[in-house]
């Protein structure tokens, strides 16, 4: 898959969609986050990043090791927990509160951001948020909140999930998130041989196909 093909797919993904990206590889979600940032810049769309527990710091550091320098200073960031600020942090929510309180704070900040225009919304470290769930009612409160953003025309949202971590949680959010998402994408492969497949997509021509995106090529985009 070339950069042009991928950007074309994102172009055709309508605002309001929720794209779930399940990553099983070493650097898949780090690179994917960077690709969406690049896409937004090239298309002149604003960027909003949800950063749970310093995942954006991890993305930034690991990109540096791969030879990519980016400070994400043009991205609006809502931080949940953590203490390493990357990007333009406009909201900060502690994690130790009740999900209901947490979510009302989050929704307040997010809706304010979305009232200012259209965004590419990148969600990082969501599985860490789900690690804190103890009860089904907490779990479904969070799921329900995510569902509430579905169809929000101010954003095209990309939720990155580390499959390895998420599927070992007491409340594995993947099945519910797959249900809500309009597009489900898998990143698999070993040793830099990334392969992208679609589990669910409005574009039926992509179903059942496997797209190879080697790390080496990606780094040259």
């Amino acid at each position, binding site marked *: 898959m070339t950069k042009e093909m991928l950007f074309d797919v994102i172009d055709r993904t309508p605002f309001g969609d929720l794209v779930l990206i399940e990553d099983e590889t070493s650097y898949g979600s780090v690179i994917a986050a960077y690709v969406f940032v690049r896409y937004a810049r090239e298309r002149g769309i604003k960027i909003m990043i949800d950063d749970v527990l310093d995942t954006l710091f991890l993305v930034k550091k690991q990109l*540096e090791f791969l030879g990519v320098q980016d400070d994400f200073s043009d991205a609006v960031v809502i931080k949940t927990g953590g203490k390493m600020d990357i990007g333009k942090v406009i909201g900060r929510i502690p994690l130790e509160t009740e999900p209901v309180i947490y979510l009302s704070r989050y929704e307040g900040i997010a809706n304010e951001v979305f009232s200012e225009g259209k965004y590419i919304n990148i969600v990082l470290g969501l599985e860490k948020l789900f*690690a804190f769930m103890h009860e089904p009612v907490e779990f479904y409160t969070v799921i329900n909140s995510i569902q509430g953003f579905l169809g929000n025309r101010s954003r095209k949202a990309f939720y990155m999930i580390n499959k*390895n*971590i998420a599927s070992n949680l007491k409340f594995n959010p993947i099945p519910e998130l797959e249900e809500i998402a309009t597009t489900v994408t898998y990143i698999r492969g070993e040793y830099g041989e990334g392969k992208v497949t679609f589990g669910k997509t409005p574009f039926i021509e992509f179903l059942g196909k496997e797209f190879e995106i080697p*790390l080496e090529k990606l780094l040259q985009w």
Partner: protein
Amino acid sequence: MEALEDVFTLVDKVKFGESVLIEYHRSFIPELTTLGLLYYGKARRLSVIIDDNFDSLHVIQKHLEFVGIDEDFGDALVVKTGGKRNVGNVVTRVKFVSEPAIYIRNYEKASKAAFSNVEKSINIVLGLERLFSFVSSVSEFYAFVIALQSFLGEKRRKAFYLINKEIASSIPFNPLPELERVASTVIEAVPTPTRGIFTFKKSTSLDLLGKKIEIPTGVIGWK
């Protein structure tokens, strides 16, 4: 089969600032790796800092003695957390408390004081799985993960975290999935009777990805 210098050339490719996770299966691999990295530090004129959690270095030293290698780790700067058997040049001791926020602060304070004039180092971390075994909640767990993550990109060191895969995956808060994400390089080490087979599962150098090296115990003077 590799000569020691060939292995060192691969360790050169690990960049300063990286955190390397070495997951091993029950074996002599921690001994082989610790000694190998100690020799690497000497060969490259780098300080070697060993984080010795709960007397892990003592076990390694004794095991080496059984195979005829007398190594007192006198050239290694040792940071001890817990335990009471001093091995190597113990430069600082971190009081272990089960509250991670406090422990992490103690650790950062102690290591900052001890290593302010160390320029470049190889950092070997032993017994991290035991620290994780004291974790009793998700927020404590992530306090540790985030603290470890914050050392990424700290260019004065190349850190190697040696973790026993069986032990780590059997503790209530298994740290391996998060550590594999945080680490910039992940190496899986599998033993055979006479050698260790090291596979680069994750790497920041494309030419190391998937690379498999076999290191015979003999290269470090093991008969």
